[in-house]
């Protein structure tokens, strides 16, 4: 066996390196947990390392060797530029989450377990890497599980918090259930085709085979659980609400995004012969995800739970790009993922910093927020408008493009339903804006100063929200890559 093949997975290996370094640092640097200096080092280290690693991956994109495609272990591991790009996007998101987490990590009760947070997060990220560039169902399954198992620990991170534990329990139980079904589906695939290599499967599938159709549905359900699509979404709200805000942010963007991308690639690459079937399935799933989530979001008061439902409906919009499985859809999906990540993390940053400083997480607490903290509420408004798809913010562009893709793929009715739903979503986003600007409140959240990490992260997000759309080269660049299916 040729071990040089490992070099093809430089993304993963570099990430593993980061994890290892962090592990060692956590072991040796932090002999004494009580001193703040160490934890400062430990909070800077992951960000720095991850930034380095991101730069390393991105460099491969900027100066592509050959066509940028690479394959290892007989096609078990595949990598294309667009996959690398997605990994970069996920990295950026993770960096923002780390920046967000800092103030939370500095809390005394977390001093003891700072390192774990970073390592667990990074290992889920690693799982997503493998999931993304898997060329074989085994690789895919391992990646999926690697992405979800440490997540449980993260959700349950605040040990003595009942809600956190309950959230984790619901998450892991549903995850087990879905992975059971997924595994069964994969077994059916194996049973009917005799192989689990993506490249070979497409040839062996036929829409006539009942077992294979069942496998398709089971696969979609397993990954739909990660993306939290209706009807596999029910864990989402509870988990998001119970989990620590930082983790919620991570959940709502990174794992969701990776899974959506994988859904696209596998449906297009593997289940190509059954395109009509999975179009039908996705059609209904999307309609229900958007509508039901919007209906639930309308009357939430806890802002994290609210964001959970918003995230579900956003996921619905996200997978609009899957319809038809066109290159345009792929581009707009990745673009949407990027924009959505920026905006959503922006909102979570502000939720988090507010929670850290005032401990308030109800929408009604935000009444009169503009009077006390104008800057924060302004950024929040930008991000919410972006989520709602209001120009000139990036969200408008991403929504427009993904609708365009779906329309072009031949689903005008679906697009129309989604468009009508944007009105509802605008309604509930405006509810928060209303709370911040319009509703009078004699005791609003007291003014506070956010730490420099959060400030940096917020700046990044705001920049992304404002420029992400107008600067058209982003979309253009993704488009140049998205041939790599």
């Amino acid at each position: 066996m040729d071990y040089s093949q490992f070099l093809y997975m430089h993304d993963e290996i570099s990430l593993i390196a980061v994890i290892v370094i962090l592990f060692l640092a956590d072991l040796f640097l932090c002999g004494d947990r009580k001193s703040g200096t160490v934890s400062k080092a430990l909070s800077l280290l992951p960000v720095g390392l991850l930034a380095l690693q991101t730069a390393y991956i991105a460099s491969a994109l900027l100066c592509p060797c050959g066509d940028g495609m690479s394959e290892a272990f007989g096609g078990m591991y595949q990598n294309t530029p667009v996959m690398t790009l997605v990994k970069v996007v996920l990295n950026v998101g993770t960096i923002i989450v780390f920046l967000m987490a800092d103030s939370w990590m500095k809390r005394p009760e977390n001093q003891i377990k700072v390192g774990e947070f970073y390592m667990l997060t990074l290992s889920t990220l690693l799982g997503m890497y493998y999931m993304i560039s898997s060329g074989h169902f085994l690789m895919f399954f391992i990646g999926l599980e690697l992405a979800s198992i440490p997540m449980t620990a993260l959700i349950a991170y605040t040990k003595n918090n009942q809600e956190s534990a309950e959230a984790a329990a619901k998450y892991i139980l549903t995850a087990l259930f879905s992975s059971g079904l997924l595994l069964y589906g994969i077994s059916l695939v194996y049973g009917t085709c005799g192989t689990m290599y993506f490249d070979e499967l497409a040839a062996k599938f036929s829409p006539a085979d009942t077992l294979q159709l069942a496998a398709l549905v089971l696969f979609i359900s397993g990954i739909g659980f990660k993306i939290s699509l209706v009807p596999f979404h029910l864990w989402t709200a509870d988990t998001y609400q119970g989990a620590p805000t930082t983790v919620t942010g991570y959940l709502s963007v990174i794992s969701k995004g990776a899974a959506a991308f994988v859904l696209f690639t596998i449906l297009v690459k593997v289940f190509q012969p059954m395109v009509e079937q999975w179009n039908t399935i996705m059609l209904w799933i999307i309609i229900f995800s958007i509508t039901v989530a919007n209906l639930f979001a309308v009357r939430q008061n806890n802002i994290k739970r609210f964001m959970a439902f918003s995230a579900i409906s956003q996921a619905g919009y996200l997978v609009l790009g899957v319809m038809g499985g066109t290159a345009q859809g792929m581009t707009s999906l990745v673009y949407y993922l990027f924009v959505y990540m920026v905006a959503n993390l922006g909102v979570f940053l502000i939720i988090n910093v507010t929670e850290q400083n005032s401990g308030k997480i109800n929408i009604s607490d935000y009444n009169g927020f503009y009077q006390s903290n104008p800057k924060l509420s302004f950024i929040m408004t930008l991000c919410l408008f972006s989520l709602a798809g209001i120009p000139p913010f990036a969200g408008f562009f991403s929504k427009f493009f993904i609708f365009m893709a779906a329309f072009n793929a031949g689903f005008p009715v679906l697009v129309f339903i989604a468009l009508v739903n944007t009105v509802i979503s605008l309604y509930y986003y405006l509810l928060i804006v209303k709370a911040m600007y319009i509703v009078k409140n004699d005791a609003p959240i007291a003014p506070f100063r956010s730490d420099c990490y959060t400030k940096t992260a917020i700046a990044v997000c705001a920049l992304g929200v404002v420029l992400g759309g107008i600067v058209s080269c982003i979309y253009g660049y993704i488009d140049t890559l998205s041939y790599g299916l």
Partner: protein
Amino acid sequence: MDRLNELINIILGIHVDMTWFLVLSALMMFIGIYGFLTRRNTLAILISVELMLNAADINFAAFNRMLFPEGQEGYIFALFSIAISAAETAIAIAVMINIYRNLKNNFVANLDKLKW
């Protein structure tokens, strides 16, 4: 395994083909699901999940043995999935313990603080 087959064949006079394994795994699968949906104790639910996962593993093994004996793919997959399910169960149990610490019991019905 062939020998076992022959033995059964000799003793019971029936030929065990793949259908048996499939039926068995399907049964395990649905028993698992049923358990998951009905058990009141979280640990019992975990056991049912194990049934589901193992059902899939049996499938893999059986398919590999019966249909595609030339390769090892199924066996390998089964092994990996067993390992993964072990890991999952471990962390699940950790969570259950955590809950038990807070609630002093582990009935799934008590996990309804977060809803609507």
